[in-house]
């Protein structure tokens, strides 16, 4: 079979790109952990308030783990608990979140933190907050009449500032 020289070029180019992108996606998913929540942690969504750690929502400093802070967050129609999250810049944070009623979203605008919160499941995301700023947290799964009013705030602050509080 005769294949034109130029055709060989773009077929090779296309095949190389396919391999390159698949390698990048593979490394991102399996090495860097960029994938949807694995849903290994289930919970009785009717008793979220009684079950640890969701009986104490908020920011918790932890020792001896791969991350410095745990942000425990409960979503319900139409709000987040806690309303404001404050963490020092540069700290490694694990977000642990679930919902008490319907499906909610947990998107921190301007970052890669974007989780779906499903009743009965706990969603987790670990990241290092390396930029100072105020980030709006929004619900990006339509959850009902108050969906548009459902928001919260993530504040990444300089360590010195937070010690004054």
């Amino acid at each position: 079979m005769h294949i034109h020289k130029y055709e060989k070029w773009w077929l090779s180019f296309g095949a190389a790109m396919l391999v390159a992108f698949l390698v990048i996606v593979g490394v991102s998913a399996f090495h860097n952990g960029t994938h949807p929540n694995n849903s290994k942690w289930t919970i009785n969504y009717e008793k979220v308030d009684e079950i640890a750690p969701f009986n104490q929502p908020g920011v918790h400093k932890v020792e001896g783990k791969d991350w410095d802070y745990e942000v425990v967050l409960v979503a319900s129609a139409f709000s987040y608990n806690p309303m404001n999250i404050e963490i020092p810049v540069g700290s490694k944070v694990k977000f642990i979140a679930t919902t008490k009623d319907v499906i909610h979203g947990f998107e921190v605008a301007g970052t890669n933190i974007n989780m779906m919160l499903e009743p009965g499941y706990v969603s987790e995301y670990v990241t290092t907050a390396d930029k100072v700023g105020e980030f709006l947290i929004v619900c990006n799964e339509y959850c009902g009449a108050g969906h548009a009013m459902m928001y919260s705030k993530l504040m990444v602050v300089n360590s010195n500032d937070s010690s004054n509080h």
Partner: protein
Amino acid sequence: MANHKKSDENLKGTLYATFGLGIFIIIVWALCFNLFIDRF
């Protein structure tokens, strides 16, 4: 063959179009990926 050289020339535009599109896709992809990597 007599037609062979002619078809060589005819594929030049296709080559530019294909690689042009390919490079455009790679640049746009790289910009998006950079945004993703840059954010926390």
